[in-house]
């Protein structure tokens, strides 16, 4: 019994490097919850060092070609495979152009050396409340594709993340990719992160606005403020109502800062987070409106 986790070494495990998805799934089937998936390793290895997880089997999926997929198809959207790194996303032109919120979140996540290894799928599978990957994905209405030996299913990212370190994934299953719907032309999105004096966000926010004549589609997703990223539905309603966007921003920002459940933790108090929600919402929406 010792205070903290002063560990340099990892617990014992057996390393597997399957060459096909089927092989990986068979290993997962065989070892159940004794197995953990290794992609970038940034989360898993750090968790193992803290002894938060001590799997007996580690399955490295970097050798599986189909998980490297990074592809955009007009009308269908973007597919991001499980081993695609943040750095690869950063240099993918389509993301920079069409998926601004994701692009900005990717650029602001951790540091450039970590981004060379870290994967977006790993980022959402860790389900740590303060990270930057999930809010834009939820704002775009992205889904994860999950495979096991006998079935394939798709779950919206918003539901996939159930809470801190808790995701909708059964033993034997693996997240193979993220699917982001195509964004209509004229839609705008953006991401802000407030993390002065911290690597993690105190509050982060992804916003998506599609202002077609027939229907306003507005999504505001906040991270780091609660056990899992949340949408400010009431604030979205205000922004979707009749009238010039500019005149709605303040009341939406105020609403967002009031309607959500917000936690206090080591990074910030509840009060300060509510304040930041208001300011960041105001800033980001103004920027999006001005940018158009």
């Amino acid at each position, binding site marked *: *019994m010792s205070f*903290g986790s002063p560990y340099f*070494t990892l617990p014992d495990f057996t390393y597997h490097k399957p060459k096909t998805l089927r092989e990986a799934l068979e290993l997962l089937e065989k070892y159940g919850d004794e197995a953990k998936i290794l992609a970038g390793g940034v989360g898993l290895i750090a968790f193992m060092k803290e002894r938060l997880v001590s799997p007996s089997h580690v399955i490295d999926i970097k050798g599986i070609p189909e998980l490297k997929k990074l592809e955009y198809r007009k009308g269908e959207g973007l597919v991001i495979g499980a081993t695609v790194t943040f750095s690869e996303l950063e240099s993918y032109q389509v993301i920079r152009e069409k998926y601004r919120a994701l692009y900005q979140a990717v650029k602001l996540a951790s540091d450039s050396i970590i981004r060379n290894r870290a994967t977006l799928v790993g980022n959402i599978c860790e389900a740590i409340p303060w990270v930057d990957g999930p809010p834009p994905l939820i704002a775009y209405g992205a889904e994860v594709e999950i495979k096991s030996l006998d079935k394939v299913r798709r779950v919206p990212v918003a539901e996939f993340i159930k809470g801190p370190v808790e995701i909708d994934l059964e033993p034997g299953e693996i997240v193979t990719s993220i699917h982001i719907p195509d964004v209509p032309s004229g839609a705008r999105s953006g991401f802000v992160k*407030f993390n*002065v004096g*911290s690597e993690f966000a105190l509050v982060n926010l992804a916003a998506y606005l599609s202002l077609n004549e027939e229907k306003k589609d507005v999504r505001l997703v906040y991270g780091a403020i609660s056990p899992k990223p949340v949408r400010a539905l009431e604030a979205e309603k205000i922004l979707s109502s009749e009238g010039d966007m*500019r005149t709605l921003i303040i009341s939406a920002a105020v609403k967002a800062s009031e309607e959500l459940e917000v936690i206090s933790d080591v990074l910030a108090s509840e009060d300060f987070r509510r304040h930041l929600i208001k300011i960041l919402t105001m800033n980001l929406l103004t920027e999006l409106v001005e940018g158009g």
Partner: protein
Amino acid sequence: MEKLTFKYIGKPIPPYDGFYKVTGTAEYTFDIELPGMLYAKLVTSTVPHARIKKIDFSKALQIPGVVKVVTGKDFPYRVGMYAGDRDLLAIDKVRWVGHPVAAVIAESLEAAEKAIDLVDVEYEELPAVFDPLEALKPDAPLIHEKMEEYRHSPAFNPIPGTNIANKFTLVRGDVEKGFREADVIIEEQFYIPHVSHCYMEVQNVVAHYHLDGTVEIWTSWQNVAPIRQIMALSLGIPHNKIIVRIPYVGGGFGGKAGLGWEALVTILSKEAGYRPVKLVLSRKEQFTVAAVREGFYGFAKAGFRKDGKFIAYDVKFILDAGAYADYTVNVGRAVGYSADGCYEIPNIRVESLTVYTNKIPTTALRGFGYPESHWVLEQIMDRAAKKIGIDPVEIRRINLVKPGISETCTGERLREDAGNPEKVLQTLLEEIEWNTPPEKLREPWKIRSKGLALFVKGPAQPPNAAASAILKFNEDASVDLLIATGNFGQGTITALIQIVAEEFGLPLEKVRVDYIKDTHKSAYTWQTVGSRGLFTDGIAILKAIEDAKRQIFRVASEVLRCPEDHLELVDGEVRVKGKPWMKIPLQDIVMGYTYPNGNSIGGPVIGRGVFMSTHTTYLDPETGQGNPTIFHTFGGAAVEVEIDLLTGEIKVLKVVQALDLGKVINPLLVKQQMNGGSLMGLSIGLYEQIKFDERGWVVNPNFTNYYLIRIKDIPKEVVRKTIETPQSDGPYGARGIGELTMIGIAPAIANAVYRATGVKINQLPMNPENLWKALKEQRPDLFDEALKKFIESKKLAEVRA
């Protein structure tokens, strides 16, 4: 020293060890492996205050590779530099979450790490106290029951039966009378949280206890001498049987002074059958097990006349020293006697209490109490100025000490050549363009402002802290300089090499200082701390040079048949002054001179020199009067900041520092110190804080949640100015610099915020949440106005409030 032009002194010579560092060949303790070496790992307490009832390590011993498990019961030693309160492993009682209770020694790190999880410690919990103000109450749990048995240095005043590890008092003039005469009184409370040194190389030690009783130690530490001294006194090993070696060191910042884990690992080596043992702390252990900078409260009352004269200062400092206060008692003393900063205050009363709590132990950190005393004082100056209605610069001018005339609060008359604080202030004003109002921004919810702070610092050391140097010549007239000055990044050794090369007229490459400091091979120096290295060891070296020159000239005078005082050393040759054709190359003398017939005179030249402070004293225990320090370096910092009133974020755009260094031996090294100190000051000022939960656990023991300034966060501009008012007894007139560069940053930022907004931030760090809170409490109107401006400028008509 009367030379006017120098070949090396004052030149930007790159660090002498740069080659080894850029190639990865510089060897740190971290890199050292000895044959047959074992690894140690600490089992640490999970409770803040408890009696140890039982330690069961039978299961740990079953892990293959585990050699031994050792507990504190077997080694009832108390060690320490000043308070002498520290145990090696917990004896009977644990005093904080993280207190080492046992050590596992194993053939591999992996085995040791597996084993520590299997050591079962049974505790009987005791009431714990985490706040020093609580710990001072009469019914507070007592953390050290047997304080009277600790062997403490005579400079300190512990109070057994309480949690007070040291009580420092200073009285000068009549403070009550001063307040009666004051027109303006400022009363404020200040706070600074615990911060960690965060040197990049974690504390680590290799020790080998040999069967013959000799101990060899390799350690990542600042100084060799105190390790040997403390170990000899506490463990009873003779001095000459302890060999302490320090190779390259990955940063110190005061956190590697005094004694570290060397005594413990030495004992582990003996227990493991006389095999070498290595202990490496993890970063988490650096935040929770090793010592950090203390938490600090300042309660200040200051009285000014309406003409701006500072006439009464009554201040109480309370230091949260944690479970062990060994080094912090001296910080408590330094914070006390530096309370007056660079001002003349006729009536002053200081009480500084170093108090035990059930938190992580504490120690020195760059600045040693001065950043704390100046955090209080320099903000008081601005508050008073505002209340009186004069400029912050004006109030400083009125009260600034005058070298040669003024006395400090310890009653020390400042020497005439102590420095030029007035010029420091003037330089700051010019560089920060004090009288030019800051730019108005296109984003009107953000404001810019300028602030400044002055400071002074001298080494906090015992009055008899000595230094020495040995110079020995090789056959080719190259020089080995044997000194113990620590080399953990400050660059001092490069400057010391410049001195030797300059004085002998040798190329720099001909002067070698071994990177390893060694109690056995290096000349003695007390410690490399408190910005003293260049001053004390520099003087010792100059004396050693004089000594060697005497020997050289004696021989040369015989050979050249010319009186010694007609000789000079130029470009590696001894020449007769005015007759440069009459000369002998140095290499013909340094091993003794041989005449053509074989007759020889002289012999190998070895120079020796010492530094001993002759005017420093202990301070009077009742009044704090005396001479505590060997020099005072004056300096100032000014900043321009941008404050976002909506988020509470402070961005520092420009930093100006001005220091009176007496003489700049190497401007490149000075630049490094000034840039580095500015960044460390910013990091501690804006971001850093060790946070504890209600059970005394550190909740942010990593660099994700304990944020250090990164390259992306640096201010756009840092301006460095040096002033050279030589101090006659310093090497070439130089004074120390290392810690100075951090002291003024935080108060200058706070003053800039206060100047523009009137918002007082009495607590560090000045992070967005703390500024937002202060703004909300003190100036809610400013926030409302900023929001209004935002809405206006973005044309966001408000629908609902």
